C-alpha cells in the first residue's frame, strides 16, 4: 500500500531524506522510528503530497504521489503532530467540514461526524469549541478528522508527542482498536515503547537513512533487550557485584569504574531483578541504585550507529529539526 524507493529531499545543504526505501503491505502498521530531525516528518509530508521529493519514487494505494496527488488525497488520512483542527469550531463542525472537503455530501458528512465523535468518546464535547478541549481530546479529534473518509492508508505523525502519560495510553488504545480493523498505517514516533505497542514492523531511520528494520522483538534482540543496572556505594565491592550479575547476564557485564556502575543484559525481567537484589544483599554489597532498564530509542541508536541520539552533528541535527522544534514550542504556547 505504501512503497518508496530512493526518496531524497534536501533543504539547502541539509539532507533530510537520503535515499529512503519503505514498504508497507496492506493491513500492516509500519513504525518509522527515529530522533528529532531524522526525516520522519519529511517522509510523511512527501507521502501525503504536502511536499515534493527531490528524487525517488513514492507510491500510496497504488498511485504515484508525484503524478497523481489529487487521487492520493482522496485515499489517505493524515493526523499530524500538531493537532490540525480549528479551535474556534466545535468538534462536530471540524469533522463536518472535513467531510464536506472529502465531498461526502451534506447529510453523510453530518452522520459521519456524529459517528466519529461517538467512537472517540467526544460526543459530550462535540458541540463545544475545540479550544476548550484537553491535549488528548484534541489529538483524538485530529485522528477522527483523518478517518472521516475511511481512508485506505492512514498516516500518523507522532500521534502522542507532547501528551501526558494518561492521554498517551488512551491514544494507544484508540490506535490499537483502529489497527485491529485492518487499516494500513504509517506511524512515526520517537518512542521505542510506542513502536513496540502499535507496530507490526519498525524501520529505524537516522539522518534520512534507514539503519535497521524488523519487528520490535528483532530490534530489541539486536539492542540486547532489558538490562539491569547497579550503582555501588564502594568500588571495593566490584568483584562481588560482578559475580552476582554474571550469574544471570546474557552478555558481557559492562563496568564503568568512575561512576561505580555495572550493567548487564538479562532475559528474565523483574524476576532477574529480584534475584540480583537477593544476591547482592547475601554478598553484603551496599548499592546506591539498582534498576531494570528497557531499551530506549537511545539504546537502539547507540547499538546501531554507535552514537547517542543527542550526539548528532549540529549541522544535520539543527537546521531543519531546529526549525521544527521552534514551531512546536510556539504551538504549545498557542495551545496554552
Amino acid at each position, binding site marked *: 500500500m505504501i512503497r518508496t524507493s530512493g526518496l531524497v529531499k534536501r533543504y539547502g545543504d541539509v539532507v533530510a531524506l537520503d535515499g529512503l526505501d519503505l514498504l508497507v503491505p496492506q493491513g500492516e502498521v509500519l513504525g518509522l522510528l527515529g530522533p528529532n530531525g531524522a526525516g520522519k516528518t519529511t517522509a510523511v509530508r512527501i507521502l501525503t503530497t504536502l511536499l515534493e521529493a527531490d528524487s525517488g519514487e513514492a507510491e500510496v494505494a497504488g498511485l504515484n504521489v508525484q503524478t497523481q496527488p489529487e487521487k492520493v488525497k482522496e485515499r489517505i488520512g493524515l493526523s*499530524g503532530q*500538531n493537532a*490540525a483542527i480549528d479551535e*474556534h*469550531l466545535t468538534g462536530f463542525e471540524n469533522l463536518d*467540514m*472535513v467531510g*464536506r*472537503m472529502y465531498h461526502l455530501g451534506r447529510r453523510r458528512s453530518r452522520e459521519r461526524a456524529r459517528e466519529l465523535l461517538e467512537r472517540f468518546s467526544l460526543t459530550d464535547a462535540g458541540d463545544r469549541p475545540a479550544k476548550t478541549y484537553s491535549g488528548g481530546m484534541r489529538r483524538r479529534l485530529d485522528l477522527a478528522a483523518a478517518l472521516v473518509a475511511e481512508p485506505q492508508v492512514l498516516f500518523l505523525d507522532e500521534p502522542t508527542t507532547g501528551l501526558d502519560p494518561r492521554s498517551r495510553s488512551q491514544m494507544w488504545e484508540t490506535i490499537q482498536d483502529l489497527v485491529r480493523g485492518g487499516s494500513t498505517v504509517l506511524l512515526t514516533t520517537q518512542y521505542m515503547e510506542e513502536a513496540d505497542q502499535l507496530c507490526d514492523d519498525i524501520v529505524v531511520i537516522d539522518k534520512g537513512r534507514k539503519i535497521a528494520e524488523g519487528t520490535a522483538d528483532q530490534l530489541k534482540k539486536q539492542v540486547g533487550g532489558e538490562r539491569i543496572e547497579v550503582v555501588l556505594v564502594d568500588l571495593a565491592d566490584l568483584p562481588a557485584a560482578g559475580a552476582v550479575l554474571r550469574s544471570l547476564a546474557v552478555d558481557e557485564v559492562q563496568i564503568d569504574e568512575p561512576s561505580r556502575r555495572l550493567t548487564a543484559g538479562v532475559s528474565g525481567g523483574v524476576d532477574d531483578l529480584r534475584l540480583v537484589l537477593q544476591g547482592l544483599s547475601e554478598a553484603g554489597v551496599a548499592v546506591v541504585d539498582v534498576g531494570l532498564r528497557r531499551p530506549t530509542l537511545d539504546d537502539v541508536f547507540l547499538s546501531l550507529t554507535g552514537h547517542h541520539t543527542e550526539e548528532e552533528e549540529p549541522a544535520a541535527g539543527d537546521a531543519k529539526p531546529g526549525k521544527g522544534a521552534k514551531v512546536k514550542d510556539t504551538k504549545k504556547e498557542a495551545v496554552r
Partner: protein
Amino acid sequence: MSSLALALADGAVVAKRNLIKITRVPEVLIWTTMSPIMFVLLFAYVFGGSIEIAGADYKEYLMAGIFAQTVIFGSTFTGAGLAEDMTKGIIDRFRSLPISKAAVLIGRTGSDIFYNAISIAVMSLTGLAVGWRIRTSLAEAIAGLLLLLLFSYAVSWIMAYVGLKVSSVEVVNNASFMFIMPLVFIANTFVPSDNLPGPLRTFAEWNPISALAQAVRELFGNTGSNPPADVWSLQNPVLYTLISVAAILAVFVPLSIRQYGKAAAR
C-alpha cells in the same frame, strides 16, 4: 463537476468555517467596525473644520476617502487570517484533503467580503450621523457601495499572497501598513491631488485608490462643483477602477494560488 464549480463549492465550505469563527470571536468584528467609526469622527471633527475645498463640503468630500481607506485596511484581514491558519497547521490539513487548490483562497477572500460589507454599513451610518448625505439616486449609491466591495475583494487577493508568503500575523499587519498608508494618503482620498507637488501629484492621479475615491464620490454625488483633475484616470474613475480590479485579480489570483500550493506549515 467542473473545476470552477468544485473550487466554488469547496470555497463555500471554507467560507462557512471562517464565518462561524466570527460568531465565536465577535470581538474581532467589533474592533474591525470601531476603527471606521473612529476615522469618520476624527476626520469630520478634527480636520473637517480646518480644511476647505473649493466648491464642495469637506465632510462630504471626505467620506469617499474614508470608505476607500477602510475597505483597503479591511482587506488586510485576508492576509492575517491566512497567516494564522499557516502557523496553526490547519493549512496542512486543508492541503492534505482532496479540495481545489483555489478553495482556501476563494473561501477566505469570499468571507472577508462580509467583514467589509459590515464595516461599510457601520461607516455609512456614522457618516449619516455627522452630516454626510447621498445626493444621487439609490441605484448610483448601490453602485458606489458595490464598487468599494469589488475593489476590496481585489486587494484581498494581494493580501492573500502576502499572508501566505510571510511568517506571522504581526508581520502581515506591519508590512501591509507600510504599503497601505502611503498608497491611501498619496491619493485624492482626503485632499484633492491638485495641490500635491510634481511627482506625488502624478502618482496620486494614477493611483487606483484615487480613482476609487473619485468614483465613489461621484456616485454618491459628493463632488460639489469641484471638477476632477484633468487626467484620464480621474475623468473616467469608474472604468479605471474596474480596469485596476481586473489587473490586480489577473496577477494575484494565479500568484496566490501558486503560493498556496508551495506553502509549507511553519
